[in-house]
């Protein structure tokens, strides 16, 4: 046994090596170099097919006269962009989008963090309450919109009837611009506040409890603890939620589209958001070129907002680094 085993390696190192490198060795070298790329390739293949290609193609469509059914027409350069930017619809939709976004995101984050703080306290039937806040999230947006558009109906809606009882004039929830934004933001908040609260709650649970102990030994009350311990520790989570709700807010579609029976954002575009405008141009007016131009502009706006977000985050996170 021992002689054969000493002989074998010698034989192997003496002659077969070139063959080996040619076969297993080269394969294993490829393996080392290529495998990692293959492992991550599904993401990139997916990204190229479903993400990058449509993105680039949208840009291509945006510089052509493009009909939904007839397809590609002539090259028109920047005409679609000047049409979109020159019309009153785009600017109005942009204003509406931001107005609804601010009206929904700001109260949402504040409410979510407050609810999370309450859920983080020592409650009875904790799981019940925690699941409870998620309930609105699992209700289909269509159902939410149906219920809310009845609540916010102008003439015979529940809210106008209620405020009528205390002598307030009915509010034109569909007719006027700001009330319609408030109504839509209410739907968005109803749906997303609980979801965000749960994310905050998860982050709060990760805060070491001894920090609170120390704080209460130092004589800090519950409210002081919340602002001096909880909120600073939540900073990364707050940043995450602000970014996700920004992107979601700029793309708001469902709630606004289902707010009335036509889904076009009101007779005067009172609550027409950028995505509804895009849909209207593409599917109703059949003008894909113009819709693509709007999509490209929306993309640029989101990029700009993303950069602003990034700068603000850097600003917020500097004190932490200094410390």
């Amino acid at each position: 046994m021992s002689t054969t085993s000493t002989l074998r390696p010698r034989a192997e190192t003496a002659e077969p090596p070139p063959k080996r490198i040619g076969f297993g060795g080269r394969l294993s070298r490829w393996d080392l170099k290529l495998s990692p790329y293959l492992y991550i390739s599904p993401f990139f293949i997916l990204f190229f097919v479903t993400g990058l290609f449509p993105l680039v193609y949208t840009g291509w469509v945006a510089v052509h006269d493009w009909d939904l059914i007839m397809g590609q027409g002539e090259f028109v350069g920047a005409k679609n962009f000047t049409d979109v930017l020159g019309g009153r619809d785009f600017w109005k939709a942009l204003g509406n989008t931001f107005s609804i976004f601010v009206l929904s995101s700001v109260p949402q984050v504040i409410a979510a963090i407050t609810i999370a703080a309450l859920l983080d306290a020592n409650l009875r039937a904790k799981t019940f309450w925690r699941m409870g806040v998620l309930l609105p999230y699992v209700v289909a947006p269509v159902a939410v919109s149906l219920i809310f558009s009845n609540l916010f109906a102008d003439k015979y809606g529940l809210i106008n009837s209620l405020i009528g009882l205390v002598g307030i004039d009915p509010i034109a929830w569909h007719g006027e611009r700001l009330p319609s934004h408030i109504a839509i933001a209410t739907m968005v908040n109803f749906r997303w506040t609980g979801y965000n609260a749960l994310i905050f709650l998860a982050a709060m649970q990760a805060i070491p409890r001894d920090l609170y102990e120390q704080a209460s030994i130092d004589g800090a009350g519950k409210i002081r603890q919340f602002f001096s311990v909880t909120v600073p520790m939540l900073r990364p989570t707050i940043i995450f939620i602000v970014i996700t709700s920004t992107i979601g807010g700029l793309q708001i579609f469902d709630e606004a589209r289902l707010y009335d029976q036509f889904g076009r954002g009101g007779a005067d575009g009172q609550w027409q958001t950028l995505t509804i405008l895009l849909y209207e141009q593409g599917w109703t007016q059949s003008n894909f070129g113009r819709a693509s131009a709007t999509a490209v502009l929306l993309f640029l706006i989101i990029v700009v907002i993303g950069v602003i977000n990034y700068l603000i985050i850097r600003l917020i996170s500097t004190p932490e680094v200094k410390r």
Partner: protein
Amino acid sequence: MQPTRRTITAAVATTALTLSLAACGGGADEGSNDDNDSSGEAGGEQITLTVATFNEFGYEELLTEYESLHDNITVEHVKADTADNARDALRNSLGADSGAADIEAIEIDWLVEFMQYPDKFADLADPAVEGRWQDWKVDAATTEDGKLIGYGTDNGPQAICYRADLFEEAGLPTDRDEVAALLEGDWQHYFDVGKDFVAASDAAWFDSANATWQGMINQVEVAYQDESGEIIATTNPEVKELYDAVLTAAVDDELSAGLGQWSADWNDGFQQSSFATMLCPGWMLGVVEGAAEGVEGWDVANVFPGGGGNWGGSYLTVPAQGDHVEEAQALATWLTDPEQQIKAFEAKGTFPSQVEALESETLLASTNAFFNDAPTGEIFVDRANAITFQPHKGPDYFSINTALQDALTRVDVDGTDDAATSWDKFVADVEALG
């Protein structure tokens, strides 16, 4: 050898994933195309035909009947909630060249739009169906080179629905013949009677300016686009006159209940007795009956301001992309047969467009219990005979009319604009369409 195997596994996994994704894409297509899963047209083979409609066509029982007549055919009914949504869906599937149902219903207001793409539809011209419809109904669906795009289903001859109880309270006649005599005349006369009514009642005269507009514009022979396709909507004095007339009546004379048609408020308005009359094409009877459930006093008068008027009516088309064009055409032929159209009328009140059906005893004898047993068959046959022409609707009719409806809503429902500023916005909207 182990690393090698891993490499192969990874490669295989990647390929498999890519393939399965591609397969998913294909699968989704097939799912929406429903008929693809049956393998061929060969006789006796099971095939599934999809029929896409919207609102109420009254086809539920008919489709079951067709299945029982043909052992190898299963019919699937896809129903959109509004005509607008059906239009968007059809545009989409024509654009993608897949996903359309075997039979797609098209509303007359957007038929012209789809007539621009005759290649996307099967030619349904067939000696077997010649002379079946009123001429104007067939002409509207025939291209210049004689290709027939769709088979006519229903029409929308209009009468006036009214609340006899509210009429009585306001001291107006309640009998449907007397009401017909009272309202006989042009639109101005209809509005004048409304002023008398409103002075003596809490309710408004009509539901919304939008609905009334539909009746008025459908009596204009050339409204928004001339024969050459030129958009004249913003310069046509006839359009502007009607616009001013309807808004003066609605807002200045307070005849309108200001309820945006099809809105939640509009539906509630039926229960709140907020208006006394409305324009009623045949298919509207089912809508009223649904929204005004439990309200008594609705009746229908054999009269329409300004003569006859048609609102709506549809066609069944067969998109050329389907796998079972022949079978679909056979089903469409059967569904639009006068005999079947009478059954649809009995089911949902959709008024037939077939010449033969108009003489049907069943149709003439039919009454509607909800509308105080009104002889609706007789009334709507009269109203259909009062229609003398079909207005010319250009390819942009739908978009322009939508913009005009928005203009009316801003003044009548939202109150955010007056007639003049709202008109300016309408002009801007139409110019932006280009």
